């Protein structure tokens, strides 16, 4: 599963996700990727999010929207909200995977609860990173 979240010069956020789904899936199983709010979400008031992982858990937990909602209703930062959802809530429910997100101020977060996640970011202030493993 691949995804991207972006913030443009006008302050607009967007997020997208594209996937082949799950190997050996049957019965036209659909994961979280095409479900708005579960795998993908964007709101200029908060953040833009794209997810990857075990889709059924992301659907049940409405992961992407939950991160935005925690920022909007509990005033959590992007880092606080995304880590609470991916590292705490998702793990408690048995879900594995991660998300990438950027907020309206250009802060990025890339939490995951697996051993690794292919990920990276690039910002206009010169900050940039590409990482794969947990320890990076």
């Amino acid at each position, binding site marked *: 599963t*691949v995804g991207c979240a972006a913030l443009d010069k006008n302050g607009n956020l967007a997020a997208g996700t594209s996937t082949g789904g799950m*190997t050996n899936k049957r019965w036209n199983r659909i994961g979280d*990727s095409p479900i708005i709010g579960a795998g*993908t979400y964007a709101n200029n008031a908060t953040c833009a999010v794209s997810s990857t992982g075990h889709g059924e858990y992301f659907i049940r937990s409405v992961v992407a929207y939950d991160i935005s909602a925690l920022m909007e209703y509990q005033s959590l930062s992007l880092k606080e909200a995304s880590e609470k959802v991916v590292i705490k809530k998702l793990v408690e429910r048995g879900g594995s995977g*991660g998300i990438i997100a950027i907020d309206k101020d250009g802060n990025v977060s890339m939490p995951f609860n697996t051993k690794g996640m292919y990920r990276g970011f690039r910002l206009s202030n010169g900050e940039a990173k590409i990482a794969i493993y947990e320890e990076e």
Partner: protein
Amino acid sequence: QLKYGLVIHGGAGTILRENMSAEAEKAYRQKLDESLAAGYAILEQGGEATDAVIAAIQVMEQSELFNAAKGAVFTHEGRNEMDASIMRGDDLNAGAVAGVRHIKSPISAAKAVMEQSPHVLLSGAGAEEFATEQGLEMADTSYFFTERRWKSLQRAIEREKPELDHDDQKKAVEKSPKSSLIYSVPEDYKFG
């Protein structure tokens, strides 16, 4: 000036350094960098966030390294069935496609649903019909086929279990179709 930028992912799983060859790791990092560059170039020129998202994702869709479009995993029946979605934060508009088999860039179809239809999610044959009407590029199913994913399906069928993205780290020797370079890449086992 407001800070701008983008963040990407190419899948998660049991990805361990000890199971990744230097060649495979280099290939992944290069493609991630290429994806970031494509999206950032649009933002730098004053383009919209949605267009940057599309550009960044299409680089990974066109790469066999990731589970999306070219290189997508197989269903139990040996098909590629792809999903994609996009959402914009200014008006909360969104679009998505599910279970498509012939759309070369599923993320572009999601954008078309968002911008050119009153709907949010189209699936299967209907989604492909809509994409065709919108003039999106279609592809034969052979375009999405990769030997690596096909072998992964055969192993999954033997175990009678489904798999997701980048999981487990058994080494698999794969032959790159482009360079004939032999390198090992991480297997993708994530059990549903």
